[in-house]
């Protein structure tokens, strides 16, 4: 299934946000400071398991980094 993740086209098997994060993040990546938006709407951490992903979805996966 084709998705857009952080502006790039991806082929993914993920059924929900939690599974997509497993595909996208390095193994052992801390989940602190991570946030996800699905088609422009933020998905709260507690909903990652339930938030279903469909073909053509636009997903943003971000993290907190040093900043000024």
């Amino acid at each position: 299934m084709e998705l857009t993740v952080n502006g790039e086209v991806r082929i993914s098997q993920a059924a929900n946000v939690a599974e997509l994060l497993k595909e996208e993040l390095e193994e052992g990546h801390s989940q602190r400071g991570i946030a996800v938006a699905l088609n422009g709407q933020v998905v709260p951490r507690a909903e990652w398991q339930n938030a279903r992903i469909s073909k053509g979805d636009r997903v943003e996966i971000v993290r907190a980094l040093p900043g000024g």
Partner: protein
Amino acid sequence: MADVTVFDDPLVVAGETFRSRLWIGTAGYPNQKVLLDSVRASRAEMVTMSIRRVSLAGQGFDTVRLLKDYKFLPNTAGCETARDAILTAELAREALETNWIKLEVIGDRETLYPDVQELLKATEELIARGFTVLPYCNDDPVVCQRLADLGAAAVMPMGSLIGSGMGVANPANIELICRRSPVPVVVDAGIGTASDAVIAMELGAAAVLLNTAVAKAADPVRMAAAMGHAVEAGRLAYLAGRIPRRGRAEPSSPQLGLVGS
């Protein structure tokens, strides 16, 4: 004698109390240890963070864990529209579990000047969505007033261009803004060295937000300590009230009983 310290004079923003009037950025330090040592040396209680897309190139170091004892102030740095800034703020709220946001909406990539129209729009919308909004803005009293009218928790006018180290370019404007503002004024951007932070505070700023001046100093930890002292010195001098300037000498020692004839 009682201790004279700024601890008698806490900063209150949106109902939260800070003992330190220095807010410090976390970007551009030589390494993680220098970052942590600098934040500690500055005695700041709040640190700014950015929100960026996860990179497949790797996660880098975990700043969130490193600075877990500090209050996070995420920013929307780099956003050029209210729409992008609002989504970034929403993501920041989820990522860092805070509804505080340093709102930056940039109108020009070369000067990093705010886009006032988009800034006002984003401020209004984010307040409606329950954020505590701290907008980075022009050193313009009318813009600052509009932001306060919309419900900004503080206004953060620029001292001078971001990262420029030019200090407070227009002290008359900053003083005017501080005198009239119904909300705390945080001078943000442009600070180059400790004396710049002192000047901002002497002009009446409630706090100073800086990053590059410390991160890029030859010795960031020392400069961070200097900035901590500078905001305290400037605040105390502001509260104490300076003497008027005069164009001639005024002896400070008694004029009677001089030795000799």
